[in-house]
């Protein structure tokens, strides 16, 4: 081979090593000075991660059910007597109490396992702000719902009326800007995918909206709204009920609405409202989400919502206000036994660990329905009821890193992502923005069975959760990790009931009776859809029934 002649000057090994060492030292010095100059330190921000899980408490019920088989437990003296015992201080339980008190009835108590009331409307509070542990908004209500309307008027949420339409308190209506969606690196101002959409996808979305808005005012042959809230007020016309026998995805596929955009959007909606995928949500329930909220208001557009920094914690506090003295927190109900004159309720005080027996003439069971078989002897197990787990994380973060390319909105979501995005909990503040903010990240674990997900999540540590949250939020804001101060999270093993295929209009009716062994059941589970309005109506309906016997 003849190559170009290379003119070389030989150096020996020692010289080479010396020169190498010298240059190495030079590079080292340079890097060192660079590091010193920038004041760079590895991992300066440590993110505080705190779990607020309820698992330990929740599992007490289950353990107790094994110990407290009828007659098997040591007898504890009856400590308290109360006429009506309400089990669970979620929205349904609080609604029963609220109306009992309003009607002048005082002889009742509400027993709650948690350290605060509210159930899925419980909220987190710290120096960084407040944030919901679950439900965080209420859509403006249907105009055919005088009972809920009355409550909203009493609470100053509806402040007047104009042209027969309610005027909502402007401070509570979701302030502008409402929402933003990150679509392929571009921010758009609505959650409905629009940016860069091909004409076919756009056509499918507009057809879908046309159908759902037609359904908003459609009535069945029995004269009732096809989709109503509460669900039990919906038309029983079989033409529409049959939609409950297929999945929402199948429904969309049948309509040939198969674009990535429409399917993501429908799936996102199901996960956000029902905690389950659109493959696992019935078409009836999926359409209910889009078509049942047909409320109109004088001072805002349809589809608006009212919301607060603490989410529906505001509504739960409103229900609690007049009955604070009736609520016993830290009270885990472990067994309910029927007696000749009523019921014996075995309750553990979780703050001190002691047991007590409460005797009640009436029991209203306002916990998720799946817990009943652990607590009530002979209670049926609602096998068809599915509950997927959730992760909710409140993240304190610098506002600046969320606003680099687009103004921060109330709700932020990313197109085609599996997570549900995040809410800005400072959004409803009337005060000027500060440089830090508290956001709440939501994730519903809907792939695979609920049980598989629960098993997986039971092994998650604070470190796992941190990585998970950071990894997801980085897709929205690449530099978020270095701007985070803390993560406060809660994993809900049973997030909410899912209106799965054939559940609402068949299995629900069979497996979730409203009354069993003389105990009345009131919980949004009884509606099959976990929203404030349903829980409220379940509570109210049960109150009416109870009133007859008082």
């Amino acid at each position, binding site marked *: *081979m003849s*190559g*170009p002649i*290379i*003119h*070389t*000057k030989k*150096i020996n090994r020692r010289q*080479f090593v010396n*020169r*190498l060492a010298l*240059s190495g030292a030079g*590079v080292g010095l*340079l*890097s060192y000075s*660079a590091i010193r*100059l*920038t004041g*760079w330190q*590895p*991992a300066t921000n440590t993110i505080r991660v705190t779990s607020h899980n309820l698992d330990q408490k929740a599992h007490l019920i289950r353990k107790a059910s094994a110990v407290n088989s009828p007659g098997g437990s040591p007898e504890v003296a009856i400590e308290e007597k109360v006429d009506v015992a309400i089990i669970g201080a979620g929205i349904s339980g609080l609604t029963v109490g609220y109306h009992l008190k309003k009607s002048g009835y005082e002889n009742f108590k509400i027993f709650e396992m948690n350290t605060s009331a509210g159930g899925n409307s419980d909220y987190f509070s710290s120096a960084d702000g407040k944030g919901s542990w679950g439900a965080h908004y209420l859509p403006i209500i249907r105009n055919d719902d005088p009972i809920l309307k009355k409550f909203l008027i009493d609470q100053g949420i509806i402040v007047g009326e104009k042209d027969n339409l309610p005027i909502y308190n*402007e*401070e509570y*209506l*979701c*302030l*502008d*800007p409402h929402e933003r969606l*990150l*679509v*392929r*690196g571009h921010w758009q101002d609505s959650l409905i995918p629009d940016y860069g959409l091909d004409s076919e996808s756009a056509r499918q979305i507009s057809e879908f909206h046309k159908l759902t808005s037609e359904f908003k005012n459609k009535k069945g042959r029995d004269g009732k709204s096809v989709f109503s809230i509460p669900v039990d007020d919906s038309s029983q016309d079989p033409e529409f009920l049959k939609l409950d026998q297929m999945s929402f995805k199948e429904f969309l596929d049948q309509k040939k609405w198969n674009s990535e955009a429409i399917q993501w959007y429908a799936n996102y909606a199901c996960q956000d409202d029902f905690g389950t995928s659109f493959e696992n949500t019935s078409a009836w329930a999926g359409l209910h989400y889009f078509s049942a909220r047909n409320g109109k208001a004088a*001072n*805002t557009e349809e589809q*608006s919502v009212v919301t607060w920094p603490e989410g529906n914690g505001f509504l739960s506090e409103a229900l609690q206000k007049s009955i604070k003295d009736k609520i016993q927190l830290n009270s885990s109900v472990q067994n309910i036994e029927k007696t000749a004159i009523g019921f014996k309720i075995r309750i553990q005080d979780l703050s001190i660990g002691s047991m007590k027996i409460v005797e009640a003439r009436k029991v209203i069971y306002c916990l998720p329905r799946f817990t009943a078989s652990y607590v009530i002897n002979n209670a049926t197990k609602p096998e068809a009821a599915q509950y997927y787990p959730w992760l909710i994380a409140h993240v304190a973060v610098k506002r600046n890193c969320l606003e680099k*390319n687009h*103004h921060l909105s109330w709700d932020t979501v*990313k*197109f*085609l992502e599996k997570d549900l995005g995040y809410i800005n909990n400072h959004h409803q503040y*009337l*005060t*000027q*923005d*500060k*440089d*830090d903010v508290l956001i709440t990240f939501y994730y519903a674990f809907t792939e695979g069975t609920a049980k598989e997900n629960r098993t997986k999540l039971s092994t998650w540590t604070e470190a796992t959760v941190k990585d998970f949250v950071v990894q997801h939020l*980085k*897709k929205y804001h*690449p*530099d978020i990790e*270095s701007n985070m101060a803390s993560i406060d999270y809660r994993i809900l093993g049973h997030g909410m009931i899912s209106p799965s295929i054939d559940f609402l209009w068949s299995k629900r009716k069979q497996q979730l009776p409203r009354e069993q062994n003389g105990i009345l059941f009131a919980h949004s589970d009884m509606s099959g859809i976990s929203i404030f309005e349903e829980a409220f109506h379940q509570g109210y309906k049960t109150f009416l029934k109870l009133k007859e016997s008082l």
Partner: protein
Amino acid sequence: MNLFYFFSVFIVATCGLIYELVVGAIASYLLGDSVTQFSTVIGTYLFAMGVGSFLSKFVTKRLVHTFIKVEILIGLFGGFSATILFAMFDHVSSFRTLLYSVIMIIGILVGVEIPLVMKILKDRIEFNKLVSHVFSFDYIGALLASLAFPLILVPYLGLIRTSFLFGMLNVGVALMTLILFKGETRGSRSLVGFSIISLLVLTVGFVFSERITQFTEQMAYNDQVIYSHSTHYQRILITKNPHELKLFLNGNLQFSSRDEYRYHEPLVHTGLASLKDPKKVLILGGGDGLAVREVLKYPSVEKILLVDLDDKMTQIFKTNDLLTALNQKSLTNPKVEVLNGDAFEWAKSTFEKFDFVIVDFPDPTNFSLGKLYTQKFYASLASHLTENGLLVVQSTSPFVARKSFWCIAETIQAAGFKTYPYHVYVPSFGEWGFVIASLDKDYKQPESYPADLKFVNAKVSDDMFNFPPDMAYLKVDVNKLNNQALVKYFEDEWAHYTH
């Protein structure tokens, strides 16, 4: 010597893979869908390397020379790749074109490298050994890069610094080659200079990558920045030249000492001089104390309450000599009470009434400030006004932002006030607007003004209430918390004006 070449193969391979990962990561950050981004970036990069390898056959002379040049170029392109991509994301029409151009250039250069090293070494090492060693080092470098990138580099250095650091390493290899092969690279003083300058530029980039924002900030102002401070709410910045002093909040000019009286006199006197013996005055915003200075010209005024969000702002206007010379120490006057708090919260939670209320907030440039221009806010001010009291609101430019101006007037009216809009010419700002509002009593222009005003008098005042056709009223929406109509008008109008 040969060992050095293998060492440089190792460095070169590491750097090459790092740039590929940096660009891939940026692409997936900025464009989303990491699978697509990474695979297209990797594909393009490998293809570019192929192009580079092909091109390397044309290099037959001055091999070491070319190698050094290629190293420096890779160092520069690779080193600046992250900065260029991040900085240009908002400024180029086709970000993808830029992205793939960057990856093509780096890829081609890296593709030239290895064949070049092999050609340099082919006469020194047995071919069999050469191929095996070069590729071993190449692959080891790749392994190191792919492990270090996610585990060490991104978490500790971030993307921008990582690319600068590896740019420095590339240029470092060039420099070492120059040192070790003095003989072969004789007569290449320019190359030494080039590589040293490149190394310095990259080092500066590495060191100052996080301070680039401040460089651009200084560059944005014509005058010397004499004070700048970020508070929880805003960035306060003051500039000075021999003739004037200017205050900027979040980059928006608030006043120039040269003509601020043309703003503050109409803001205060047009309303206040029309009241008979005003006693209590409320100022919301206006932490510079300039409106307070004007109010203090009324002997009947007993109390002035100034509510400003930012304690840093009122503090510096209380203590700095340059600034107190301007506001005549108004903020430390015994009649003045300074309260640092949020105006909306204050208006909702207190009940004190005032004869004259001055609302002097920054323009509604964002949704947060927009809340202070809503119907809800003005309604909450109504309860702070005495029966015959007046409210005045600074209302941006009716010339530049005609809809915004009339939106503010309309919103005040919707909150239950009678409104009296007017405007003046302020050289630093252009045409500027205000709205006087009363609850019940009609507003009448003042018959007399405090002595020694520089701008406002009865004749000037007459003109102020006359709106020529290009600023005349037009129908607009009322600004509410749940529509933020004003911020949208404002953004739209000022964007058209400045671009």
